[in-house]
C-alpha cells in the first residue's frame, strides 16, 4: 500500500506559526515602547511644569563645593568635579581589586590548609564577613574604627615612625618628585622585567632547566626601579604630626581608608570562596601527578594547581571585581568624594536630578563594560582550548 501523498491544506495566516511569532514580538516591542513613551511623556510634562533643565548644561555651572585633599576651586565647573569623582572611583577600584585578590587568594588557600588552626582561622573569617551587609562593615569601619578607635591627632599612633595613624587619616611615606616621570619609569621597568622573564622561559624550554621566570623578573624590576630612583634623584619624605594635621608623605583620607578597607574585607571573603572552590575543582589527578614527580608542596601549588584554578575562577572573579567597583558607590554614605557622592552633592546644590544621575549610571555602565571586556580578554587567553 503506497502512502497517500496529500497536499497540505493551506494554513490560514493567523494560525501560521511564523506570523504568530512575529506578532508576539511586535506586541512585546510595542508594549515596551508604549511604556517608555508613557514615562517620557510624563517626564516632559513634569519638566515643563517645574521648568528644570533636561540637558547636560549643568556641567558648566560652577561647582560651589570643594573636595577635601584636592585643589579643585569652588568656581570650577561641575564637569571637573565629576572627573575628579570618576578618578576617585577608579582609585578605590584599582587598589580594592588588587588588595582583595591578594587577601582573598591567601584566605582561600588557608581554608584548604592541612593545618587545623589556619583552616579554622580562614573559615571563621569567611563565614563571619560573608554574611554581614557591606554597608554594616562600612559603617563600622567609619564610625567605630576610624572615628572612634583611631586616636586623636595629638596622640597619633606612629608605627615604626613611618606612618601617622589618627582619626584625621593615615599618612604614609611618599616620594618627592614628579609622579608622572616615576610612573613612566616604573612602567618601563615592568616592561623590561617582563621581557627578561619571557626570555628566561624560552631559554629554560630549550635547556630543560627550571625557568624561575618570576624570580628573574622581580629582581630585574627591583634593580631597575632602584636605578631609576637613584639616577633621577628621588627621595623619601616621612610624614610627621604638625599641629592639628600632618605634613609630608601622602595623606589618605579617613573615608578613603574606611571605604577601601571595608570593600577589601567584604570582597576578599567572596573571592576566598571562589578560589577555594576552584582549587577543589582542579582534577585530583593533577595534584597526584605533581606528588608522583616529587614536587614540593609549594611547587605543586604554584606550578600545577593555582594556574589551573585561576582558569576556572576567572569568570567568577570578574563578577566580584564588577561588584567591588559598583559597591564603591557606597562611599557616598561616608562622604568619600567618588562619583556617586559628587552626583548627590550637585543634585543637592540644584542641578537637575535626572540628567546628573543618568550620567552617573552611564559612567558606571562604561566602567563595568570595560572591566568585563578586560576580564573576557584574560578569560579567552586562559581558557582551555577545546574542540
Amino acid at each position, binding site marked *: 500500500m503506497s502512502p497517500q501523498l496529500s497536499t497540505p491544506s493551506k494554513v490560514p495566516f493567523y494560525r501560521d506559526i511564523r506570523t504568530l511569532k512575529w506578532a508576539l514580538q511586535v506586541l512585546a516591542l510595542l508594549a515596551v515602547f508604549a511604556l517608555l513613551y508613557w514615562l517620557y511623556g510624563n517626564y516632559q510634562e513634569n519638566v515643563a511644569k517645574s521648568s528644570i533643565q533636561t540637558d547636560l548644561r549643568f556641567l558648566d555651572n560652577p561647582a560651589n563645593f570643594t573636595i577635601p585633599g584636592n585643589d579643585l576651586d569652588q568656581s570650577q565647573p561641575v564637569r571637573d568635579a565629576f572627573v575628579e569623582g570618576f578618578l576617585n572611583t577608579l582609585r578605590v577600584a584599582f587598589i580594592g581589586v588588587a588588595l582583595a585578590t591578594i587577601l582573598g587568594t591567601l584566605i582561600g588557600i588557608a581554608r584548604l590548609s592541612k593545618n587545623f588552626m589556619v583552616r579554622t582561622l580562614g573559615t571563621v573569617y569567611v563565614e563571619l564577613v560573608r554574611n554581614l551587609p557591606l554597608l554594616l562593615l562600612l*559603617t563600622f569601619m567609619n564610625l567605630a574604627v576610624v572615628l572612634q578607635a583611631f586616636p586623636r591627632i595629638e596622640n597619633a599612633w606612629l608605627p615604626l615612625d613611618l606612618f601617622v595613624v589618627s582619626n584625621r587619616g593615615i599618612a604614609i611615606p611618599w616620594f618627592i618628585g614628579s609622579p608622572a616621570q616615576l610612573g613612566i619609569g616604573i612602567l618601563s621597568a615592568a616592561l623590561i622585567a617582563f621581557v627578561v622573564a619571557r626570555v628566561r622561559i624560552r631559554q629554560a624550554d630549550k635547556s630543560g632547566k627550571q625557568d624561575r621566570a618570576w624570580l628573574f623578573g622581580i629582581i630585574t624590576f627591583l634593580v631597575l626601579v632602584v636605578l631609576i630612583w637613584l639616577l633621577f634623584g628621588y627621595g623619601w619624605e616621612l610624614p610627621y604630626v604638625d599641629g592639628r594635621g600632618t605634613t609630608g608623605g601622602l595623606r589618605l583620607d579617613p573615608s578613603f581608608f574606611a571605604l577601601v578597607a571595608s570593600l577589601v574585607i567584604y570582597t576578599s571573603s567572596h573571592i576566598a570562596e571562589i578560589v577555594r572552590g576552584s582549587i577543589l575543582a582542579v582534577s585530583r589527578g593533577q595534584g597526584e601527578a605533581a606528588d608522583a614527580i616529587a614536587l614540593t608542596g609549594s611547587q605543586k601549588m604554584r606550578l600545577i594547581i593555582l594556574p589551573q584554578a585561576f582558569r576556572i575562577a576567572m569568570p567568577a572573579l570578574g563578577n566580584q571585581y564588577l561588584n567591588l567597583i559598583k559597591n564603591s*558607590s557606597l562611599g*557616598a554614605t561616608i562622604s568619600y568624594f567618588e562619583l556617586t557622592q559628587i552626583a548627590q552633592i550637585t543634585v543637592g546644590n540644584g542641578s537637575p536630578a*535626572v540628567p546628573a544621575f543618568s550620567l552617573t549610571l552611564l559612567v558606571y555602565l562604561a566602567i563595568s563594560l570595560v572591566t568585563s571586556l578586560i576580564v573576557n580578554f584574560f578569560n579567552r587567553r586562559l581558557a582551555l582550548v577545546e574542540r
Partner: protein
Amino acid sequence: MITWIRRNLFRSITDSILTVVSASILGFVVFQVFQFVFVTGRWEIIQVNLKILLVGRFPEELMYLVGFSVLATCFSIASLASGANRTIETTQRLSGRLWELFQRFGLIIATSTFLIVLAGDLDAILFGAYVILSILGGRLFGRARRNTSLRKLPGWLWVTINALLPLILIFLTMGQAALEEWGGFLINFYLAVVSIALSFPLGVLLALGRRSTLPLLRWLCTAYIELLRGAPLFVLLLLAGVALEFFIPASIAPDAIFRAITVFTLFTAAYLAEVIRGGLQSIPKGQAEAGKALGLSTFKITFLITLPQALRNVIPAQIGQFISLFKDTTLAGVALSVLDLLNVGTAITKQDDYLGQGLIYESLAFVGLLFWVGSYVMSRESQRIEKKLGVGIR
C-alpha cells in the same frame, strides 16, 4: 589525640609557626569578643531601644498585624519546606533528628531566645510559643500535601497558595500603618520577603526571554538584564528616590518603601535571570527533544520539563541571590532615608542618654547579629539542599 595534634598542627617547623601565629590571632579575637560581650559591653542601650530596633515606632495597637504576618511567613516557609521534600526519610532515632534540627535551626532558636530574654515580658514569650506552633502547623500542612489527595495539586499552585497568605497579610499591614511609623528590622525583613516573592517570577520570565528563539524578545531581555547588572544598586535607589516623580504622574507616586521594593525587585530579577539562565543551559538538549517527540507544545516543554529541572539545579545560587538581597536592604536606609535596622542602630547612639559614650560598638554588634544569623542560616540551608540534591558532585 596526640597523633591528631602532631598531624594537624605541628607537621613541620613552618607548620608550627603558622599554628602559633593563627592560634594567637584567633585567641586574641575570641578573647576580645568575649570580653566585649560579657564584661565591657553596655547592653542597656539595646534593651531600652529593643522595640525601635525591631519594629520602629510601629503603633502598639497594630502590632498584632505584624505578629500575624510573621507567623504566616513562618507557617508558609515550614509548609513549603516539608511539602516539597519528597525523599523518604530514613528512620532515625528521635535524638538523631533532634540533633539535626538543632544543627539547622539552633542559631535561630538561640537568637530568638536572646531577643525574648532581652524583651523580658509575657507577650514576647507568648509570641515565641505562637511561632513554634505556626511552624508545627505549617509542617503538618506540608505533610498533608504529601499524604492526601492534595498531592495532585500542581507545584506552582501549591507554592502560590503558600506564598499568598503571608504576602496578603504583609500588604495589609503595610496599608494599615503610616509609613513614618515603620522601622527597624521589620523593614529589612518585609523588603526582603516581598522583593524575593516579586522578583522570582520576573527573573524566570527574563531568563526564558533571553533564551527565546524570537530575536526581538531576546534582545529586549538581554538589554534589560545587562543594563541593570551594570548599574550600582545604590545609584538606582538614589535615582528612584529623587527622580521617580518625573516619570510617573504625581497621583501614583509611591512612598519610599514601595520605591525600594520596586528597585530591589527589578534589580534582583536581572541577577536572578542570569542564574536561572545558567540552570537552563545546564539541561541537556535531549530533555526538550524528548518533549518534542511526545508532541508537547513549547509552553508545556518549558514549564513541565526544562524549567523545573533548571530551577532545581540552581537552588543554591538562587538562595545566594536572596541572601545578598537581604543584606542589600540596608541600602534603602541610606538611599531613601528609610528607618531600617542599620539606620536605627546608628541613630540610637545619638540619643541624649547615650550620646558620645562610644556605644556604636554595641549597637552595630546587635545589628550585625541579626543580619548575620539570617544570612548564615539561609546559606547553611542552601548547602544542605545542594548536598541533598547531589548537584555539583562530580
